[in-house]
């Protein structure tokens, strides 16, 4: 069992970063296998639960994803160190927020890379959250129309056929209205 799965495992950090850029599930599985245990250990040692460890690790991976998807990310340390440091900063932040002074996470040395990133991450996160909420509130069929057009890059004719509009102009009008609504939702949130 272990032999088969190991042959699929990606070892080098660069492979994993490429996989993340593509949203590859093999890369994500590998991230969990390789890097999660140390993060979990750190959090469990510092007043955390398994669930909290899962949440923090997921957030750390998303930080990584945001950086990678911005395109100009260069790994200055090992990926393991990076994730560990980000997770530690996130966890510290959460502890502080909960009013618990952190007892023995005192070794800051390797977390300096992540210091700024957390601030940026939170900003970015709230921006993405806003859009997510707006898209959630938009409702059907608007959501699907916009997704098909802007994300899946379908032509107006395809969308017209799919939703049964009498002509492409009607579909265009509908798309325009939907986009206006989404903008309104996004900017008023």
């Amino acid at each position: 069992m272990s032999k088969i799965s190991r042959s699929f495992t990606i070892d080098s950090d660069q492979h994993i970063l490429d996989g993340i850029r593509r949203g590859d599930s093999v890369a994500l599985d590998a991230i969990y296998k390789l890097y999660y245990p140390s993060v979990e250990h750190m959090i469990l040692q510092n007043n955390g639960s398994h669930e909290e460890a899962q949440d923090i690790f997921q957030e750390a991976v998303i930080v990584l994803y945001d950086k990678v998807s911005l395109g100009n990310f260069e790994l200055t340390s090992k990926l393991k160190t990076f994730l560990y440091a980000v997770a530690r900063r996130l966890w510290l932040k959460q502890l502080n927020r909960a009013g618990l002074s952190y007892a023995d996470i005192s070794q800051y040395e390797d977390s300096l890379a992540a210091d700024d990133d957390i601030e940026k991450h939170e900003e970015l996160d709230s921006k993405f959250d806003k859009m997510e909420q707006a898209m959630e509130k938009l409702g059907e069929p608007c959501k699907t129309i916009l997704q098909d057009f802007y994300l899946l890059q379908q032509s107006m004719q395809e969308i017209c056929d799919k939703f049964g509009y009498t002509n492409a102009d009607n579909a265009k009008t509908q798309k325009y209205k939907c986009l206006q609504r989404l903008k309104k939702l996004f900017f008023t949130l």
Partner: protein
Amino acid sequence: MRRLSQQQFYELADQYLRKELNDTDRLAFEAFCAENPSFSAQLSQHKEFINHMQATSRRMDFKSQLALSAKEFRKTQAKELKITKQTQLSTAADADTKESQLPGETKVISILNRYKINSFIAAAAVAIVAVFSTLWVSGYYKTLEKTSSNYSALRREMNTVRKNVNAHNVALRNINSKKDADVSSSHYGATGFMVTNDGYVVTNFHVVNGADSVYLQNNKGDSFKASIVYTDADKDLAILFIKDHNFKGSKNLPYTFKSAASELGEDIYTIGFPRDEAVYGQGYLSSATGYAGDTVSYQISIPVNPGNSGGPVLDNRGNVIGIISGKQTGIDGAAFAIKTQTLLSALKDIPTDSLKTKIVLNKKNNLKGLPRTEQVKHLRDYIYMVKVY
């Protein structure tokens, strides 16, 4: 270029961004934007918005993919944990058959190397197996079964735990309201019974020693505040007086006080409050002296527990012959009761100024000849739970 409606503009903008416009249209659109700065701004805003939307959507996909991976990982983790445990168990069980042990071990080692964190769990599993098998081999469980008395002890502990938890809950609830008045720091419970029908009650000195306030609760659940009128530390006796205005006095006492010494082997019983409900206990008088030859008390054989202190000891005919005061730990069935004679001499010692009314002891016994259950029924009105704060 002609004037454009908003909708037409966005349509063109979308096509422009998707590079679907032919060269002439594209140039015309670019020229239009260059001419109209407000539309140019709208275009860049639109572009940014679309990009953000696309990024958000990809990010959402990524998140859900990540959640899937997390779920998958947890599943395999749980599975491997189970395998580790099973192999551990089977290794322990088949200690003799080495053939079956070897593949199991290699598997364990490979898993341990990959997940060092699991090694703690594995070690714990081994320890648990070792502990329980040792206990089983040494026959610990068999002796456990035999000593059935552990059962009641265990239940008592549970009650204490529950009480503590309730107290914690109360404390937590009051944490913000800043009234710590009703969080009683420590309080004791014991038993007391009436000496006269106008409100004198006797209990042990050790019960009320150091008391802030003393309350007496009758079997109907009514509580009365009582003051301590007399204590005698040597005899371990305390006389209380109910000074509560709700207390109206009671009917004549049904029992009398026996001044003469009682004989060994006498059938006796008591009622006390080792818990919040009156508890009946019966036994016999086993020795004429108390702990370490103490002549002011008897040794009796009645099962008593903390809370029985101050309870009356009565004989068959409804005479009070003593007051429960304590028991010897480590010796079965050795409880002690202060003799009634001691109580009577203590009553005589009370300075008259500290008494509100003169103590007149009851001479008429209404319990004589009644069956035990009837006696107990009559008695219960005169026995109080002493609550000391």
